[in-house]
């Protein structure tokens, strides 16, 4: 309780409702725009209430798209995004849980060096050295491929760091009990460590899925074949209009479709999401 001031509580609710309105505004506007037809935008301002063209606009985008924007149908781009996001999430979890296991549970020569090689990448986003990374990936012949879309983004130490933290907080006694129970390293990894990291993996998965789905610059650069465009990277191409008006209703429908999967994931798995967020950052 501490004090009796109902006024303050009211103010708090007010602030929150206002906050939610501000946060929701752009998405509302986008959604509304996506339910109108092209002619509704000629008049000057965006309508504020939904129109009747929702089904029409969305189904058109999903299976036909706007061919003159150089993008394939949105359905195809969403599939690409999905493949990319899943590959990144699963790949990253797989390789980093192994390396974290090695770093935490073994002592071997050059362990420190290996550790630093990995951790130096912790905060080095791909954007920073975009040109040479592009060249390296191009040199490997990975342009226009799912491998090229995902593998370079798999390498980053965040997940390794997280698993390292998780393993470090696992009680020492667990390994000791397992050793007394006759389990070797891989058996321990499979029987104990992996099952115990399940929720961490799930939480990380949520975060990485969002991370992968939301990639922009990288897919923009390394895909020149429209069959590999992802939705987030493709949307910008649709928004650019030549000698005409952007197809606002279609662009916004695409924007809504691009937001839908990650937002749904966040809302449906809020607990895991928060856990993942907090863990990956700390």
């Amino acid at each position: 309780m501490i004090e009796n001031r109902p006024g303050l509580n009211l103010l708090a609710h007010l602030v929150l409702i206002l906050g939610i309105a501000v946060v929701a505004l752009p998405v509302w506007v986008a959604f509304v725009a996506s339910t109108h037809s092209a002619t509704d935008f000629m008049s000057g301002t965006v309508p504020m209430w939904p129109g009747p063209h929702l089904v029409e606009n969305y189904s058109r985008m999903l299976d036909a798209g706007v061919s003159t924007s150089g993008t394939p149908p949105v359905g195809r781009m969403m599939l690409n995004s999905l493949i990319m996001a899943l590959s990144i999430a699963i790949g990253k979890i797989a390789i980093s849980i192994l390396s974290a296991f090695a770093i935490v549970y073994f002592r071997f020569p050059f362990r420190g060096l290996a550790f630093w090689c990995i951790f130096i990448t912790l905060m080095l986003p791909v954007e920073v050295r975009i040109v040479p990374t592009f060249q390296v990936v191009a040199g490997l012949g990975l342009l226009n491929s799912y491998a090229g879309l995902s593998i370079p983004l798999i390498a980053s130490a965040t997940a390794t760091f997280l698993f390292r933290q998780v393993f470090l907080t696992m009680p020492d006694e667990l390994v000791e009990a397992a050793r007394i129970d006759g389990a070797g390293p891989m058996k321990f990894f499979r029987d104990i460590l992996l099952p115990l990291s399940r929720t961490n993996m799930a939480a990380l998965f949520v975060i990485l899925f969002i991370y992968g789905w939301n990639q922009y610059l990288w897919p923009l650069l390394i895909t020149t074949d429209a069959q590999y465009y992802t939705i987030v990277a493709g949307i910008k191409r649709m928004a650019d209009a030549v000698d005409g008006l952007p197809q606002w209703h279609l662009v916004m429908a695409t924007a809504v479709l691009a937001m839908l999967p990650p937002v749904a994931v966040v809302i449906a798995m809020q607990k895991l999401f928060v856990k993942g967020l907090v863990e990956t950052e700390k």
Partner: protein
Amino acid sequence: MASITLNNLGKVYPGGARAVGNVNLDIADGEFIVLVGPSGCGKSTLLRMVAGLESITDGEVRIGDRVVNQIEPADRDIAMVFQNYALYPHMSVRQNLAYGLKNRRTPKAEIDRRVNIAAEILQIGSFLDRKPRALSGGQRQRVAMGRAIVREPAAFLFDEPLSNLDAKLRVAMRLEIKELQKRLRTTSIYVTHDQLEAMTLADRLVVLNGGRVEQIGTPLEVYRRPASAFVASFIGSPAMNLIDSRAVPHLPGTAHAGMIGIRPEDLSVEAEGPILMDVLAVEELGAQRLVHGQTGGEKLTIALPSDSELSDTLRLSFDRKSLHLFDRETGARIA
């Protein structure tokens, strides 16, 4: 079942810190040994060297007649109960019990048999299919015991297995462990920092301090003839009064000792007693009361029946035989 022998056992951690030095101990088959001492004195280190979880830097450990220094924990034929139980949180109680046996390729039927026996002994049969998190502290403790029992090892090793329980449960579980060990007669080494637990459980106590053995003996031996001032103050509650002999120059026959020890219950109020104490505080414990006071600048505590008379100063007397004398420098017992 086996005897365990520690020969000149010592441990220096990689950093160079010596945690344990020169420990010699013969543990008979079926004996219940308790290692007791203050935090950081090396109890766990010692136990873990026996378990094989910590490498041995000096001396040797024998289990039965094998030197086990180089043998993997899994092959030492020991079982261990940890302070935090270290139950596998994702496995059911049954799987927890069976895991060690499964890894040793024990046949399924044999595993079931042993698990059921252990479950019966410990009365955990009704929650064999629960996960550890669905158990109370005491139940978890039992499962941890069960995991040790099913293995039918040569020795049990316990590292403060009760310290995560609340006071009441601790008392109850301590009785259970004692009974269980009596029944199974498995050689046991038990680590605790709680002197009461040590006293009540041990066949023999090993009092450690700073990585060295201060005294080995039965609980009563240790209580009655503490080998050092350290043991004297560590074992027994309320703790033994330790006073500088110079504070009581009028006490005959103590001048050669640096420190005089006397247990609070060995002091009695008597009109003609040689010690005059100013009373500072009185604590009622119910059955008795503790009177805290001061004499010649030294603090003193006495335990009195709860119906005894009190006043601001008390004259105290004692039996010469109940005095313990220690060397001022070394702390070693003199008489």
